[in-house]
């Protein structure tokens, strides 16, 4: 557990198999959903997200394709830094809605880079311990569709 980017072993919960789903709008597939949990022992404010990047099947997803859903509110990746009043509870899922036109059924290689400030672990002015909630796994797109 490096203090610089602490990585706990609650890895398997980060990407929710159940919530890796197609997103449909009026019967057209418009993207996919990725349910994400924290790899940590407590929750933090959304403003503690320092880095959020996504690759699918080896290809980086442009930031403007991603809509972040937290507490039933939607945000852009660029807005996350502002959201000190939205708490990401350790048992709460956030969703990344990726409007890329959808993915074919079956297996996909999902690589999420997610690094967060550990907000109580301050080493120096503006220097904090970080924790790593990144995940890389091959996932099967769920059958159940998330309809908008």
């Amino acid at each position: 557990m490096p203090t610089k980017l602490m990585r706990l072993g609650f890895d398997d919960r980060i990407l929710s198999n159940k919530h890796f789903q197609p997103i449909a709008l009026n019967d057209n597939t418009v993207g996919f959903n990725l349910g994400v949990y924290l790899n940590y022992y407590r929750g933090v404010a959304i403003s503690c997200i320092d880095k959020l990047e996504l690759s699918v099947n080896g290809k980086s997803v442009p930031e403007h394709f991603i809509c972040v859903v937290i507490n039933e509110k939607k945000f852009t990746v660029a807005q996350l830094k502002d959201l000190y009043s939205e708490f990401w509870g350790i048992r709460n899922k956030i969703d990344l809605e990726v409007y890329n036109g959808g993915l074919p059924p079956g297996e996909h290689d999902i690589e999420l880079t997610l690094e967060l400030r550990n907000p109580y672990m301050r080493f120096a002015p503006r220097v904090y311990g970080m924790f790593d909630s990144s995940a890389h796994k091959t996932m099967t797109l769920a059958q159940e569709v998330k309809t908008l």
Partner: protein
Amino acid sequence: MSDVVDFGVSLYGFTENWINNPEYQLEDMFRELQQLGIKKFEIVGSQVFSDYPLPKQEEIDQILSLCKQYDVEPFSYGGYIDVGRYSDHDMTDQEILNEVTYELLTAHRLGCPMMRGGAVPNHLLKPVAQMAEFYNVRIGFEVHAPSKPGDANIQETLAAIKETGSSHLGFVPDFGCFITKPNPLMVERYLSLGADKALIDFIVANRHTGFNEDTMSEKIKSMGGGDAELYAISELFGFLSFAESADLEGFKSLLPYSLYFHAKFYHIGEDCVETTIPYKELLTMIAESDFSGTIMTEYEGHCFYLNDASEQIERHLKMEKEILSSLAA
């Protein structure tokens, strides 16, 4: 056995189940406490609530109703001060004071007489003491590894607490400070990750011979070490650090200002003996002091992803009671 000391259990000990098992609820924890015959517990706000630092009333009400049902009571509130919550600045003094107030409010709403406080700068202790008195919640600042009681900064905080003259500030010594060797489970884990036994032995033997995390990493690399050894170094110089020797003198200096204790442990065998922390010495010092209050069992074996909290906490409580009984005898 001392009749001025009692026992509590931190719900933090159930972390493994709480994080990994979506079915496991607070109610299950309370049921475990009831089975252990324990009433007092510590609850970590940022771990149990969906909103933090100020949980919604619904969440508070739910906990209080379960407490009634299972005849348990919130004793200490595990607060933090998330000074890094804002992405553009460290909390200002005023923001820290507000944050302390929010934490005190939550402790108060839960009915906790105690709160584990996070890092508050010494120059703010006077207003913090005043706020703690208003809320009538006593704040104990945790002394946690790799710090130890005798460290200069801890002793400065002690002086600052004394200077407030307030009965509402103090410490929560975490027994993890007094670990003098790595837990065997830790070493086993490094080896399972591919670390070389000889290199791990070198790291442990030289933890206090002048290396820091960076120089030890360089040294171990030069000796052929890789990721697994570097990982071990980062833990053993970090939150799983162990001391050269247990700082019992330092502990003595904090004792009159200790509000309660985090009786930390990582693993206890079937014989109910903890082998890395001088529990007998610590409990003896507590029993022989003027302390009256609560020793809070804080299991942290989940950092090895063991799902054995119930068994381990039971062993821990048994060990504590045996030691204290033997002293009274």
